[in-house]
């Protein structure tokens, strides 16, 4: 469990729970132990709202923001989400809110072309809030359904950048749209710092869900267990590769099973 990045606190708590049940004679043979643990973990992940929030009755575009640390997979995940939403028949506008990273706009533009989404970009170094604002205004004037706002990767320890992100979220709604999802993108290889990230990003932008990326690798992404159970932030999507189709809804059962696979 530790090897899966669940963390000492979570592991201890789960095993304690198991110990209690053994003491109470709830579980009597060793083969039932693992089964009981899996069931317990799956149960703790049950009942979360995992759908992506899209309010069709709005009349103004829904805005979904991608946030997270550098290299987590925000832009690639945004592209995958765009492709999915377009397949559902929705019109999608991408807002290139990463105005810091070299060629970030070009990267997103490539995805816009590949997926058929529209895109609004700013100059490199432009104020990310105004790019997102422009994106929303443009989408609204064209009666589009969804704005997907990319943001620059940032470490939660950088106060200035976190303030900037707060502003992006605030300003996004000043335009004619409403933010219905703030998705925190977390790399499955992330260790215990993932919980700190979630806490800080949630405080700054009211994160509504997690996209757990790179789950096609050997890492199990166990840190999201703590993010869900301690912070109540549901994992909504998982990224399983670099192509635009490599996105799936989060399945708690599959996730728990994979933790015990070796």
């Amino acid at each position, binding site marked *: 469990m530790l090897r899966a990045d669940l963390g000492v606190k979570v592991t201890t708590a789960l095993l304690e729970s198991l110990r209690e049940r053994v003491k109470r004679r709830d579980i009597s043979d060793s083969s039932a132990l693992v089964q009981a643990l899996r069931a317990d973990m799956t149960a703790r992940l049950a009942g979360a709202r995992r759908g992506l929030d899209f309010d069709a009755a709005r009349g103004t575009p829904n805005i979904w923001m991608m946030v997270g640390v550098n290299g987590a997979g925000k832009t690639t995940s945004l592209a995958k989400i765009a492709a999915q939403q377009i397949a559902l028949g929705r019109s999608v506008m991408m807002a290139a809110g990463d105005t*810091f990273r070299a060629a970030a706009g070009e990267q997103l533009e490539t995805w816009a072309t590949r997926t058929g989404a529209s895109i609004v970009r700013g100059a490199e170094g432009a104020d990310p809030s105004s790019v997102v604002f422009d994106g929303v205004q443009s989408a609204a004037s064209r009666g589009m359904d969804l704005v997907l706002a990319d943001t620059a990767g940032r470490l939660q320890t950088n*106060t200035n950048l976190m303030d900037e992100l707060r502003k992006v979220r605030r300003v996004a709604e000043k335009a004619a749209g409403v933010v219905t999802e703030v998705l925190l993108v977390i790399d499955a290889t992330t260790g215990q*710092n993932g919980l700190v990230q979630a806490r800080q990003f949630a405080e700054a932008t009211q994160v509504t869900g997690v996209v757990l990326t790179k789950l096609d690798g050997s890492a199990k992404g166990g840190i999201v267990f703590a993010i869900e159970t301690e912070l109540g932030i549901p994992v909504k999507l998982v990224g399983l590769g670099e192509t635009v189709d490599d996105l799936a809804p989060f399945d708690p059962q599959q996730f728990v099973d994979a933790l015990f696979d070796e």
Partner: protein
Amino acid sequence: MFESLSDRLGAVVGKLRNRGRLSEADVDEILGEIRTALLEADVNVTVVRNVLARIREKSVGEAISKALDPAQQVVKTVHAELIALLGGETLKITYASQPPTVVLMAGLQGSGKTTSAAKLAAWFKKQGRQPMLVGADLQRPAAVEQLKVLGAQIGVPVFSAPGDPVETARLGLEEARRVGRNVLIVDTAGRLAIDEEMMQQVRQISDAVQPRYTFLVVDAMTGQDAVTVAEAFNTTLAIDGVILSKLDGDARGGAALSVKEVIGKPIAFAATGEKIDAFEQFHPDRMAGRILGMGDMLTLIEQAEQVFEKDEAEKAAKKLATGKFTLDDFLEQLQQLKKMGPLQNVLGMLPGVGAQLKDAEVSDDQVRRTEAIIRSMTLEEREDPSIINGSRRTRIAKGSGTQVQDVNRLVKQFAEMQKMMKRFGGRLPSR
């Protein structure tokens, strides 16, 4: 922030009786807390086991120095062991007799290869070399474009060609020879260690350009899986050194230890930010303290340097450590500290302060209130808070728009903080 090691050990020490030598039981109890600390720092489970087994051997039966309590003794051994594990030989870059000296960048997606490649190029340039960058990541949209923009920023040429990454790398090498560049840095696509096809590809790139140095770029926030990744890349490529990225975050960085244990090669560089100049030699001693959760006084001083003048920073740190820190000093530092990041993180870096902070519930609102309270004090009151009697408290509360309880709390907590800082003045890791 997780409980600091000092906090944990404080609890353990309380229970131990002071004997002349460390018994097995003593050592096991202390190591138990250290195990938790290392796991919380993301050090791989197996690596933790191995490291602690070695330390246990060294510690049991050791005479307890008169200056330290048993826990401190073991921590000192652990700290020294971690420094030795993380350090050892530094990577001294030497150059190929037939230029160019080729450097290959490898690692997982998003680890920081491209940014590090540019930083490395800038570093070589500073060493008086003529580097060239090759964009052999043809997978990620606009990856080559990114490298070109960075290359332009630092005045280093960037070569790329569409088609096949192996061929691109080979052509890059030819180009470097043709135009007389003496260092060639090849950026490659991020890849999963378990992706056989992609690992084959990077092996082919390596075979094509015969790098003198192959660097594995590892994200400092990587968890347990760092071991699997390091092993796989090392088997395929024979890594010469590791570049640890995103160290400007607050991840404890245990992955560094795991990777070092597995690969056995030096951690050559530390990347500490998104800007090109955020690139430096790796410091094993600072990393050891950070992983252990001892609080990284050196990082604090360094960060403070960016905001303060250098002597001011040392003065501040010294004042903190010797307990001569007054409320006035605190007010001054609060202004500066705010710039360094969330207060909780910054002060949490000091050993032992973590626990105090939990009670204080430090937040940035609290900072504003605290500032207001201190400003309502006279200079005398700030120098010597013991003179603050009832009527003064009322005046201060009125003046700052707070309650008398808030003033009381600040004065009390500050006094306790001073005491604590003074205590830890002796426990700070020596340089």
